[in-house]
């Protein structure tokens, strides 16, 4: 039921988005407006059809729930009630193995979304070369409970990968807000330059 309701919410949002897409184009010159309207109006019609389908789905599920409730109330309570089954449309049931508790799986899902945001912030603040290995170390050692050995190997591989990208393939990567604010570019540029000087003489 939760999934059907969410589907309904998404369908409403899509209709609103398409109304905005069409409305926003109203004051544009003809040639700018032509394509957004040529596409936008049929897509708006499609989203309205989808909204209708989503409403029918929710209403159908509600009717089925009411009918099931009425049947259960009228049936004699001769035998013990069966254990509650997972909802038919619970995606977690399909996405994770049966041995994993769905509630725990959902908590892990939310946690990893949080980590996605933490990695994003770390890259923004410290750049790729420092942000991802440091956050990776915290994730591996303190959140995932990996051994120091495994954590350090993964983190060093990540650092080496970014070195290869920047020094070897000249892929420009951002320094991050903090090193930039401090005026030091990449945090490790000093030691790296010294190392490059020692090894390559340039």
């Amino acid at each position, binding site marked *: 039921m939760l*999934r059907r309701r*969410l*589907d309904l919410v*998404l369908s409403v949002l*899509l209709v609103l988005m*398409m109304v905005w897409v069409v409305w*926003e*184009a109203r004051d*544009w*010159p003809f*040639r*700018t407006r032509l*394509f*957004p309207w*040529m*596409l936008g109006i*049929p*897509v708006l019609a*499609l*989203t309205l*059809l*989808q909204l209708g389908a989503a409403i029918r789905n929710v209403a159908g599920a509600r009717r089925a729930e009411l009918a099931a409730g009425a049947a259960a109330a009228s049936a004699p309570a001769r035998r013990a009630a069966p254990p509650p089954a997972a909802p038919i449309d619970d*995606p*977690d049931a399909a*996405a*994770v*193995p049966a041995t*994993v508790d769905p509630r725990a*799986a959902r908590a*892990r*899902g939310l*946690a*990893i*979304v949080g980590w*996605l*945001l933490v*990695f*994003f912030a770390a*890259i*923004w603040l410290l750049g*790729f070369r420092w942000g*991802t290995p440091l*956050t*990776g170390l915290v*994730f*591996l050692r303190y959140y*995932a*409970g*990996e051994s120091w050995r*495994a954590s350090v190997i*993964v*983190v060093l*591989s*990540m650092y080496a990968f970014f070195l290869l*990208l920047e020094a070897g*393939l*000249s*892929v420009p*990567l*951002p320094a991050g807000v903090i090193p930039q604010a401090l005026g030091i570019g990449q945090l490790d540029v000093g030691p790296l330059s010294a190392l490059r000087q020692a090894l390559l003489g340039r």
Partner: protein
Amino acid sequence: MLEAFVAGLLNVFTVPVLPLMLLGIAVGFAVGILPGIGSPVAMALMLPFVFGMKPTEAFAFLLGMYSVTSTTGDITSILFGVPGESISAATIVDGHPMAKHGEAGRALGAALMSSLVGAVVGAFTLAAAIPIVTPLVLSFASPEFFALALLGITFVAALSGGNRLKGLVAGGIGLVLAMVGLDPQEGIERYTFGQVALWEGLGLVPIVVGLFAIPEIIELWMKGTSIAETRIGKLGGVWQGIKDTFIHLGITFRCSMIGTFIGIIPGLGGSVAQWVSYAHAVQSSPDQSRFGQGDVRGVLGPGAANNSGAGGALIPTIAFGVPGNLVMAILLGAFIIHGVQPGPDMLTTNLPLTFSMVWVIVVANIVTVAICLLFLNHLAKITYLRAALLIPILITLVYLGGYVDANSFLAMGLALLFGLIGMLMVYLDWPRPPLVLGLVLGPLVERYVFISYRLYEFGFLLRPLVVLILLIAAAVLFLPSLQRTGAKWRRVWRAG
């Protein structure tokens, strides 16, 4: 002609052409397998190195690199669910579920062998097409290109799985997202919220990486296991995957031809070819129930098409100097650096050079597939690593893929945003491939509509080739429904 064909082959095996080609393959292998660094970036980075080379050496190096990126890009798509190249994204749809079911070896074997078949078909089509391609491409103008792009959009229906309406809406949203940015006609901002970074539009790479990779990362952590949920011992499926290529040779060959043909059309290329060929694989299969859950035919189609496109894209580049895609535009730069003039010269005085390009594509793919098959066991073992060890690496690759597309944090944020949208789409059973197809084809449809209207007004819709292509598009869109309705009526009629 035959002399030039043989001379082209012999050229490839001379020194320093062969070592340079192998070096190009090594670079292409790394570029393909690492998400975020696309072949156009690699080609652009390597272009300065070809100044000192002879034309045959330069093209062996550059084409050797380019022609293997899509092959190795498939490996990352299958093992991690992150497209190694933007043209390898369609391989994820069935390849990654196969890896999750412990069939990584089979999926990789199928992807590699179909890539080889595709590359060979594309290369020899290039060789065969050279004398006859001129009238074909000259007969196409912008109205026909518009009709072809529209034909591509109709494949949305086939990519929608069980829910055609949701698929059509997702495809429509993809087309709408493609409108974000500066209007190509008047230069007016459309749906940019005043952000200069959005003037160029929404990048395809961050959206594809986000839509497909982030839901995989979340699901992987929710399960708390490795990518492969079950083990099959010593990766026994590789030979099965190779055999699958020949069991389904029809699909492999047809998708190779689709890839070659789309590669010929300027502006389309591998990003479109992979999805159209995937849609063809779905549509032409009698049993479609396993597509999206790990059907090997869903690996064979895109695997073949994204490799055959290289040969196809070279046809207009060589014959007319019209680059079929960004990589070909950079390659055209290499032509100019070396004073090689595309056009009739490439079919007469420089014919051995043209044929050496054909052979480079073939030999580079044979070498790559052989290397991959040798180390496949080690590659596939990555899918048995614990989720915790992979998560930081995958998150890094996703953000890197997003960032390098436009060198901006906004693009990185876009990858994250579309990752969450992708998760919601998976949760609510919305198909993701139609959205990508709409996004890819949107700018093409708009461009060709305007050029056609300017040249012919609405008369462009009545050109014979346009009418023919639009009829095919209508058949693609409505035939399955008509067939189902017909079957239903027949059942009713038989039941009396």
